[in-house]
């Protein structure tokens, strides 16, 4: 048995000094940083559009094409964007919660498919069977999109087990909210990962609230990753999840550790700019608090970073916006003109169709 000492390498949240930012930017390089920026913009605009189409957001008329829950990732984009950049789509698996639009776009599921899924169409990502909470990709090893808080953590652990079993050299990244930390599955999974040295990365996206319950009313300790990782013989990382550079940097370290057979627990301090889901009035947090965080918008900060490096001008940023706008318009059109699932789909896929 390995000794219980924790190879702690906690990084606290806090704005990185400009010198460090420049260094990270250089490491990332122009193309990759622009690509990540574009990904974040795509997620943001996709969700803003979905929000309107869910009809909860009033802009004159009430448009309702999307039903059910709609949990938006807006504000948190830097976290998964930073991680995804370090993953090898052929062998690294990812899994997340119902707040899954961002990850689905990041792994490269076509926006058409995703929008059609939100519309409940047969052309949707899962044939209209899942809706907003259940995006998946077999090809890209994105294992969901899960509705039960904490339910995806063992699944991510299984993907890490699988990578080790099949000796692919792959890792798994399991995203979860701060609200999932108290669930038994968190503990059970991290213990197995720590025990068996699975190539697993657990990322707590601490957006400080689980619905209306602020993190300090749900979790007994202030610093989740730092306080808990030693209990699973894991190192921990804690960083400013509203900062793409910090996210990219930390993700790189975490992925490297996991790839080397050391599971890790990461805490990204972040914030959601919208309500928990579209129906949440959000009375549990003040306008001041929300506004203060909005000033730390990861997209704006990344834009500032890019500008600081002189890697793009306003026209270039505008071009990103219009390219993304076109993608989304096309996705909406695609979804709108797609067919409902046939009623034969009702009983299809309850069981597997054929042995592989």
């Amino acid at each position: 048995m390995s000794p219980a000492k924790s190879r702690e390498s906690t990084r606290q949240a806090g704005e990185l000094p400009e010198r460090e930012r420049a260094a990270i930017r250089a490491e990332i390089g122009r193309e990759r940083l622009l690509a990540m920026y574009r990904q974040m913009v795509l997620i943001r605009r996709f969700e803003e559009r979905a929000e309107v189409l869910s009809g909860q957001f009033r802009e004159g008329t009430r448009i309702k094409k999307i039903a059910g829950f709609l949990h938006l990732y807006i504000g948190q984009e830097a976290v998964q964007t930073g991680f995804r950049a370090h993953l090898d789509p052929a062998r690294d698996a990812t899994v997340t919660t119902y707040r899954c639009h961002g990850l689905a776009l990041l792994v490269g599921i076509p926006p058409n498919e995703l929008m059609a899924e939100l519309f409940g169409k047969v052309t949707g990502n899962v044939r209209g069977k899942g809706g907003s909470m259940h995006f998946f990709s077999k090809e890209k090893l994105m294992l969901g999109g899960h509705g039960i808080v904490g339910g995806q953590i063992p699944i991510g652990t299984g993907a890490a087990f699988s990578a080790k079993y099949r000796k692919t050299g792959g890792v798994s990244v399991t995203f979860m909210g701060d609200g999932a930390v108290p669930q038994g599955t968190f503990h059970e999974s991290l213990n197995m990962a720590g025990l068996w040295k699975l190539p697993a990365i657990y990322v707590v996206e601490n957006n400080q609230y689980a619905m209306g319950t602020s993190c300090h009313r749900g979790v007994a300790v202030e610093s989740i990753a730092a306080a808990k990782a030693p209990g699973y013989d894991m190192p921990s990382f804690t960083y400013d999840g509203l900062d793409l550079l910090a996210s990219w940097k930390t993700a790189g370290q975490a992925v490297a550790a996991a790839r080397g057979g050391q599971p890790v627990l990461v805490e990204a301090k972040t914030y959601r700019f919208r309500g928990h889901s579209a129906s949440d009035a959000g009375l549990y947090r003040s306008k001041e608090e929300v506004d203060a965080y909005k000033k730390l918008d990861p997209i704006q900060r990344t834009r500032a970073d890019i500008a600081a490096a002189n890697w793009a001008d306003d026209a270039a940023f505008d071009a990103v916006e219009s390219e993304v706008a076109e993608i989304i318009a096309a996705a909406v059109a695609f979804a709108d003109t797609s067919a409902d699932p046939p009623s034969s789909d009702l009983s299809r896929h309850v069981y597997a169709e054929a042995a592989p």
Partner: protein
Amino acid sequence: MIPASRLAPPLRASRPINLKTEPINGAKGIPLGNGQQLLSLRMAICQALDEEMRRDERIFVMGEEVAQYNGAYKVTKGLLDSFGPDRVIDTPITENGFAGLAVGAAMTGLRPVIEFMSWNFSFVAFDQIVSNASKMCYMTGGMFPIPLVMRGPNGAGPRVSSQHSHAVEALYSHFPGLIVVSPSTPYDAKGLLKTALRQDNPVCFLENEMLYGHEQDIPVAEYLIPFGVGDLKREGGDCTIVAINRCVHWALEAAETLAKEGISCEVVDPRTIKPLDIELIVESVRKTGRCVVVEECYRTGGVGAEIAAQLMELAFDDLDAPVERVTTTENPMPYAENLEHETLPKPHRIIAAVKKACSR
């Protein structure tokens, strides 16, 4: 003949409700004079909690978002203000933990009410419900009864798909030691919840999100409804429809349509699934000779299966046709609107089943 007293106050059609116009304290109904008040089902539950918490200090309410947020569906609105944070307690997302905590509290003199934000999340707490709550009284030779009410919305919500749409009546009524209550109206909900809070067994109290806004005139004066006593929601002679919770409303809708076609349906609402008022069902079937069970559980091993089996045992010679079962179809709930519609036991499917039963 079934005594008229079994007929509950008439249902009042649900009308769209605006949360903001509900009183700050969810427990306070709108007085209507003549001893009646207007209450939504949501408020009926809140009022029952409020009244019983005043009456009995041992009762506390615990669950995710029940206190500061006033409940994810605002069912516990105002309770925190009225009873304070010692008795109305927000929990971490840790259903197995707080369900077990409630069992321990019930063993040491308290009378916990726990809210599952939805019964889907009770699956995480399944072991504490089954291995501990349901068995404790028996396995301690009666030493430790468990006065525990577990409540929350059950069945399909609005387009929330696979993992959020279970109806658990059949699941939990399989286990001896549990009581399963599934009210369809504000009147029933209030009276049954008060009963649940005054007895000593673990109760699964199953609400329905889609009915929270459903309103009814109910008495201001206190009343309780005993477990195991079903209710006729409509009288009729051709076919008995046994319907549970939200399905009562679909059954009434179907009965309305069928009446126009000359088929007269009796709608029996068992109100509690365990214990089950099989006498009332048998009585009705003796009269009609036909029975359709409508529920949101899956077909295999649903409540309809149990009712069919019991009817066979108790009314073998009275049945003119097999018991028809209109249930959630045998698939996880799909998100797409058309598929969701076909999955649920809605009026069109009930009508078809009644006609099938009557065609025999």
